[in-house]
């Protein structure tokens, strides 16, 4: 008979660093001890009842499985502890690495968001820069044109900038209202003096649509005289032309009022005895149309008494002005 060896109770699961013969050495040592103890017990007690002998031996020895397990642990303690420490360190390091990765991912995501916001802000800045650059380019172009103009002024009769040569004034004459029918019968005359240019006077011809174009004008102020044979009224309009900028289309509205003759009865006292004395009569009228004021005038030299009738000019709705001047 021997002791009841239970490998599950005696030893834990095999450890990778466990020496090959460790378990067998422990078991052999315990078995030898128990055998010696049993032999000594038989000699001492002179007892042939082997079961009783072994009961006494095991009762004194204790649980061989527990002692075997303790011896195994004592032997493997350092290796097992080292493994546990390594495992613990690896777990801690893994957690630290994962936490670091998580933080890095969050940082990267945050940086991405910040980059998007920065990119958007940079787009806005670029857009505003573009508009600013555009405005600056326009400003620069204006400045350059102004410099050219100034250079032209300083140079006197020197070469003119193209911007000045390309300026154009376009006149459109309509009857009654700005949307009225064209009035090609109106005569147009332009006078003026551009930069560094001799005074000019140009008779304009309106085309059937009532349009006249005055090209290649330099910077300066130009006067346009309109004479309407239909109403026998005239009007002066001033247009200022800037370098490099066309004056555009100017709509002129000609009078469309009916003639209304004026009859004036004169009974002026004579100075002295000279009955042949005459007076100069001047009758003026105005007609407002589209911001322009047309005028007419009728003059006559008549006797101091009698009736005088005007030539039947329109005499617009505004009151006509009458003035009589003594002629000596």
């Amino acid at each position: 008979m021997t002791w009841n060896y239970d490998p599950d109770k005696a030893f834990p699961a095999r450890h990778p660093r466990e020496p090959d013969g460790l378990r067998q050495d422990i078991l052999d040592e315990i078995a030898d001890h128990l055998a010696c103890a049993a032999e000594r017990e038989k000699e001492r007690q002179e007892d042939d009842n082997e079961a009783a002998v072994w009961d006494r031996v095991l009762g004194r020895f204790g649980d061989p499985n527990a002692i075997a397990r303790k011896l195994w642990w004592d032997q493997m303690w350092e290796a097992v502890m080292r493994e546990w420490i390594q495992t613990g360190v690896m777990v801690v390091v893994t957690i630290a690495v994962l936490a670091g990765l998580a933080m890095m991912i969050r940082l990267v995501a945050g940086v991405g968001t910040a980059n998007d916001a920065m990119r958007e802000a940079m787009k806005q800045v670029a857009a505003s820069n573009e508009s600013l650059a555009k405005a600056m380019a326009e400003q620069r172009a204006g400045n350059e044109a102004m410099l050219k103009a100034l250079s032209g002024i300083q140079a006197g009769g020197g070469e003119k900038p193209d911007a000045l040569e390309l300026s154009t004034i376009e006149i459109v004459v309509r009857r009654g209202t700005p949307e009225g029918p064209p009035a090609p019968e109106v005569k147009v005359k332009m006078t003026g003096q551009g930069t560094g240019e001799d005074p000019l006077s140009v008779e304009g011809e309106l085309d059937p649509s009532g349009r006249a174009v005055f090209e290649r004008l330099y910077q300066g102020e130009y006067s346009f005289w309109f004479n309407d044979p239909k109403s026998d009224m005239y009007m002066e309009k001033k247009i200022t032309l800037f370098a490099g900028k066309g004056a555009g289309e100017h709509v002129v509205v000609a009078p469309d009022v009916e003639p209304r003759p004026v009859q004036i009865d004169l009974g002026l006292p004579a100075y002295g005895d000279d009955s042949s004395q005459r007076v100069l009569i001047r009758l003026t009228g105005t007609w407002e149309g589209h911001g322009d004021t047309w005028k007419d005038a009728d003059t006559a030299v008549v006797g101091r008494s009698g009736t005088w009738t005007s030539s039947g000019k329109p005499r617009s709705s505004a009151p006509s002005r009458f003035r009589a001047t003594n002629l000596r």
Partner: protein
Amino acid sequence: MKNTFESDMTEMLILHVTASGAACGYDISQQVLERSQGHFDLLEGELYPMLHRLERQGLLDSYWTEIDKDRRRKFYRITAEGQMLLESRREQWRQFSTGVNGVIGAPQSNGLLGRLESILSTPIHCVGESTGVRP
């Protein structure tokens, strides 16, 4: 659980037994038991862990010997390092017992101190010492 004094004492007794010649665990326990007249009964549950610890500390050396076909025996013997420690412990013990004897008088032969001194002062002739071949 034994206290440090008892543990050191047991260590000293084991080293003393093995200093006289290689012995197996059972022989060591029996010799201590007999020479202490039954006072120092080393329980196997404490003896073998202590033997293994002394072996790991380099104070004991061991080897195996075949007893018969299915049985082999492990013998322990003291190393040089163990011998030095044993001498140190013996000296400590003598100083300790001299001091104690000075207070309580000469030790009785059947008292604890007397039995310990008996063990330490008497060379041990190991009955179970192996003459087998060391592994």
